[in-house]
């Protein structure tokens, strides 16, 4: 086999490195989201001087997470990327169709509560998750 051991190791190592960084940034993003969401109410009584930086920090970490997500996707092989793409396509489609429909339900008074963005985020995350599992099973 003509690839050198180092070259192969580099590819494997890079994949592991990308996953490690992505996990780290997802974790930090969740923590910064909690800080931005609950800090103003429970920690500093809506002090703008602290709220604005907390929100900017959340945005900054969010963008860094997106960068590592992109690196992670580019580090996958073409077949794994295909599975991810199909799962993301489902997620985007379901998010758009169900999201608008969900909002409509409230407009036409079929539900009494206010539709919340987190519901949509959870739905999209679950759709991606199921899509990846389904994709992996389909091509097994």
């Amino acid at each position, binding site marked *: *086999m*003509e*690839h050198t051991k180092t070259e*192969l190791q580099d*590819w*494997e190592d890079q994949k592991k490195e990308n996953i490690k960084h992505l996990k780290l940034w997802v974790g930090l993003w969740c923590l910064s989201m909690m800080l931005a969401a609950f800090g103003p109410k429970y920690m500093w009584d809506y002090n703008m001087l602290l709220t604005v930086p907390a929100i900017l920090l959340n945005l900054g970490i969010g963008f860094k997470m997106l960068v590592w997500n992109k690196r992670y996707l580019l580090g996958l*092989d*073409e*077949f*794994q990327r*295909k599975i991810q793409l199909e799962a993301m396509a489902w997620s985007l489609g379901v998010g758009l169709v169900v999201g608008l429909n969900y909002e409509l339900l409230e407009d036409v008074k079929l539900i009494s509560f206010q539709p919340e963005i987190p519901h949509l985020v959870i739905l999209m995350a679950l759709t991606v998750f199921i899509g990846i599992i389904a994709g*992996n099973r*389909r*091509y*097994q």
Partner: protein
Amino acid sequence: MKNRIKVLRAEKDWTQAELAKAIQVSRQTVNAIETGKYDPSISVAFKLARIFEVNIEAIFQDSE
């Protein structure tokens, strides 16, 4: 698209994991290509041809 990867791999006595490492894809990808569930890109096809030391046509055949 049909392919002879399983036969060529057996001739070399390589596992799917070894072949996957050699062409820098996952073992799952090799399995999907072997079973005809996924047609690889031209880049992976060339890597396979190089690793098996044959032409691409000796690995892949159009099923039509």
